[in-house]
């Protein structure tokens, strides 16, 4: 079999991206070569640098190029709070709220036995070490409200609760601005079960 031409190789390589099928990959490859050689060079260098330089923060496990990421090094953050999220994208969402001033731990996944992901795969041992560093007083569990995210939160809570740490979970219920008529029944059912006291 003949080796792939550079164009074919590029098209194939682009297909590793999410949402990129054969057609889209071909379109991207042709666009770069036909209309934007400069962009193509830039992309190549950026990819090369990122793939080589980006690693996991020693403290929070998120992506960084340093030993310890800027967020973990910041003196403005509250080191007694540790928020556990599944992915760097989740970390960014929590940051976006501007409602949280503590530090993070990024699991890079969640417990999912049916996908072959257990505590070893998401490095729960590292989270335990991080949470028990002496400075952390409260761990905020912000894993997803899927069965896998819930199971992950449950076991982290079990592991930490025995060690004199306060463990909290994000609240769940009707969204801000939510009208009951349009909220899905599963959410509404759970909001009823987890209703809270306003006056006695």
């Amino acid at each position, binding site marked *: 079999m003949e080796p792939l031409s550079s164009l074919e190789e590029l098209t194939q390589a682009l297909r590793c991206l999410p949402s990129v*099928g054969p057609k889209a990959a071909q379109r991207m490859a042709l666009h770069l070569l036909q209309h934007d050689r400069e962009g193509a060079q830039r992309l190549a260098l950026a990819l090369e640098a990122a793939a080589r330089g980006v690693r996991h923060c020693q403290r929070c496990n998120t992506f960084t190029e340093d030993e310890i990421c800027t967020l973990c090094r910041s003196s403005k953050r509250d080191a007694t709070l540790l928020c556990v999220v599944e992915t760097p994208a989740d970390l960014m969402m929590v940051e976006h709220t501007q409602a949280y001033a503590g530090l993070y731990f990024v699991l890079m996944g969640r417990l999912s036995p049916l*996908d072959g992901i*257990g*505590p070893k795969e998401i490095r*729960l041992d590292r989270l335990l070490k991080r949470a028990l560093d002496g400075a952390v007083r409260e761990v905020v569990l912000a894993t997803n409200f899927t*069965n896998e995210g*819930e199971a992950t939160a449950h076991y982290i809570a079990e*592991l930490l609760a025995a*060690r004199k740490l306060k463990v909290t979970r994000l609240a769940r219920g009707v969204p801000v601005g939510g009208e009951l008529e349009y909220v899905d029944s599963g959410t509404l059912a759970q909001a009823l079960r987890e209703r809270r006291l306003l006056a006695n």
Partner: protein
Amino acid sequence: MKQARERREDQPAFVLHAHPYRETSLIVEALTADYGRVALVARGAKRPRSELRGVLQAFQPLTLSWAGAGEIKTLTRAEWRGGLPLVAGSALLCGFYLNELLLKMLPREDAHPQLFRDYQSTLSKLAAGAEQAPALRQFEVQLLAQLGYALPLTHEVDSGLPVDPGARYYYAFDRGPRTLASEPERRYPLVRGTTLLALAQQDFSAPDAAVEAKRLMREVLDHYLERRTIFSRRVVRDIQALDEIADEDDDS
């Protein structure tokens, strides 16, 4: 031979597992009451605003509609049926275990309406916070029975005599309890009569019955699983190990 295109509406079902398919879709493995385990493509279910996103969760009663001719059908509608509290905490891991057993042991499109009811009632118990081990043992026995491997538990294979609670037996796979004398090769798990009867009656109050029943069922299931391993068991072990490691750190 081309399979006829089928269309099913509003079938009671549970999602067992879903995995990504192409860019924005999911392949959902579901357990249905009347059509057994079916594989369905949920088109667009991974899109941010897809209504299916929150609905296609395991351990919640749903109604699913689908159409198609091949082994993998197309999901046309999914609705939340409700009536079951969310499975929470350590019961979630039991739930994953049930689903893994079903995915690995139940062939697709073999209807087992009774198994569906057994599964639903096991989930209800787990969701209600019932004791987990007896619920799991009962489901394991029910699952094997529905798959055609009903376990003889109350009578000896060779003599037909009732199992003696005080005696010990080799549990011969596919056959049943054999006395120590009739099984000179000792290839099978050794089990006490009380444990066999505990499994038959689903009453694990006798000392050590629960522990021994768990071990026996594990070996029996492994026999039928052949080489497929149940990952959920490893997850439970690893979490326990982690707890112990952390304890050691505490002590130091």
